[in-house]
């Protein structure tokens, strides 16, 4: 019987060959993080200078923060797209039925299929911003970026759960693209990528605590205060992410099982 490893191998194979056959798209992927930096910069300095932006965000190196925040934003986008978009993309291609027909639980397919693409997006993004990070922050900046990558890897766990929850919803509703289109901007809005969470209204601050990206951005902010890295807040970030991972993946597992049953009653497409 096939299992999760087979799904991940298949997905990795498809992605690698997809990039091989779309080389220009592959190269442009290295530009996207810089486009995101541009967007963050425009939004960030909309209400003041770069200095004011840095002080508002509580970072000593705004350049490094922009790059790391962009990495977080792009990776989050990649994860949600890889997992939640999996159903949408494959339904559109007509491949979803054949994927579901693999001899394993559909739940397992959905949980495993997004992991390779999420990791690849993360890797491309980090590789893309590395030269700029090394230029701005030197070797220390590079090490801080690696630390953020580590936090992102842990942050990927709850985000995967959240994305599987979205995927469950996608399987059930028809106007699926709107869900993905809303999830990512909303997550970025409340996560503190553009401005500190502390200046958000109370309700959104509460919501932001349930968004995994918030904690990864917090780690990016901690890493952007040059001249001494604080350990305790970083550990708190790790714990928060692990807690969210447990909650979201538990909920996701139940939701996708429920969706699988409902979808089998109604038909996959």
């Amino acid at each position, binding site marked *: 019987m096939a299992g999760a490893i087979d799904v991940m*191998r298949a997905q990795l194979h498809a992605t690698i060959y997809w990039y091989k056959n779309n080389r220009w798209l592959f190269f442009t992927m290295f530009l996207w993080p810089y486009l995101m930096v541009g967007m963050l910069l425009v939004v960030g300095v909309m209400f003041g200078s770069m200095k004011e932006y840095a002080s508002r965000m509580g970072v000593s190196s705004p350049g490094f923060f922009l790059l790391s925040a962009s990495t977080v934003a792009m990776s989050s986008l990649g994860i949600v797209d890889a997992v939640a978009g999996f159903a949408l993309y494959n339904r559109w291609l007509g491949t979803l039925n054949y994927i579901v027909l693999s001899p394993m639980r559909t739940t397992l397919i959905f949980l495993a299929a997004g992991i390779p693409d999420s990791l690849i997006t993360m890797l491309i993004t980090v590789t893309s911003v590395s030269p700029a990070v090394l230029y701005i922050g030197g070797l220390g900046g590079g090490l801080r970026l690696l630390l953020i990558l580590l936090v992102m890897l842990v942050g990927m766990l709850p985000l995967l759960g959240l994305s599987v929850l979205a995927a469950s919803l996608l399987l059930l509703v028809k106007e699926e693209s709107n869900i993905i289109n809303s999830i990512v901007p909303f997550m970025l809005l409340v996560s503190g990528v553009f401005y500190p969470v502390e200046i958000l209204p109370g309700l959104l601050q509460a919501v932001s605590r349930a968004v995994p990206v918030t904690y990864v951005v917090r780690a990016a902010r901690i890493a952007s205060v040059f001249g001494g890295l604080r350990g305790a807040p970083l550990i708190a970030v790790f714990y928060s992410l692990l807690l969210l991972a447990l909650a979201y993946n538990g909920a996701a597992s139940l939701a996708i099982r429920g969706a699988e049953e409902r979808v089998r009653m109604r038909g996959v497409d």
Partner: protein
Amino acid sequence: MPGDWAIIAEGLVKRYLTYARRGFIRRERRIIEALRGVSFKVNWGEVFGLLGPNGAGKTTTVKILTTLLLPDDGNAWVAGYNVVDEPVRVREQIGVVLNVEKGFFWKLTGRENLRYFGMLRGLRGRDLEDRVDEVGGMLGLDKLGAMDKLYEEFSLGMKARLAIARAMLTDPPVLILDEPTLGLDPHSARGIRSLLVRLARRGKAVLITTHNMFEAELICDRVAIINRGRIAAIGTVAELKRLVTDTVPINIVFTGLAEDGLESLEKLVAERLGTPARISGEDRGYRIRMLAKPGEEDRIIAESISMLSSMGLKVHRVYVEEPSLEDVFIKVTGGET
């Protein structure tokens, strides 16, 4: 026993809930009964055709048998496994084609696509590569250059071949194919039909849905005609043809009879063979047309040839007028297409 049959469908019922818009907000709830108790069995080693007009329930039946859809009532087994309780086991036993026009990644080649779906079915390493090459060769994809061509550049014929190649990747004992030759050129369609028959002769069970009566008549060992969610008729093609006629017209073309002997020959045939006969002129000879009861065709033909020969007449040609499967289909479905 479920395992004795390749496929068993027992009283399958499926209802779909749909909503029809009535104004901007108001929606009217409708229940569509797609299947109303569909039952049939498919033997190992046979090509079984599921025929029916659009919306008759063919695809719904296929989706239930392939575990993509749960029935509201009734049950089904594929290779001995229950489609409701053991979906993963069923999926291990089947190769499926649902729509030959799509279902692959556009930016991957035929080989890359086959590898992807092979991996999803648990194939690895050398086994995977060998199997991909084998099915590519079996479907002629290698000769067409389709194995290393992007799917977006495929012709419909190549797409259909690739879809069937995918269905055969794990060499499953049961193949379930929804209109596998739809839209194909005659050459490709013929190749696929002959492959399906070969696979069935090797012991696999092949269930195909089709609109193509010629195809069903050509390759199906048995056929079920489904209409409005019910099996309207089931049997071999010959059995189904008997449904539309209670007599089988037999024609014998012969020469050597004098014109004044026509009437007496008609009477003689009717007396000896017990079947009404009418003689008319054809080419430079005559044609005698007799009406046999189903199952008596061979006896009537043998006896009439022997009788004509004993009278010194020369028999040139014998042919039986058979209703086509299309005639059966139209009669059974009430003319719906």
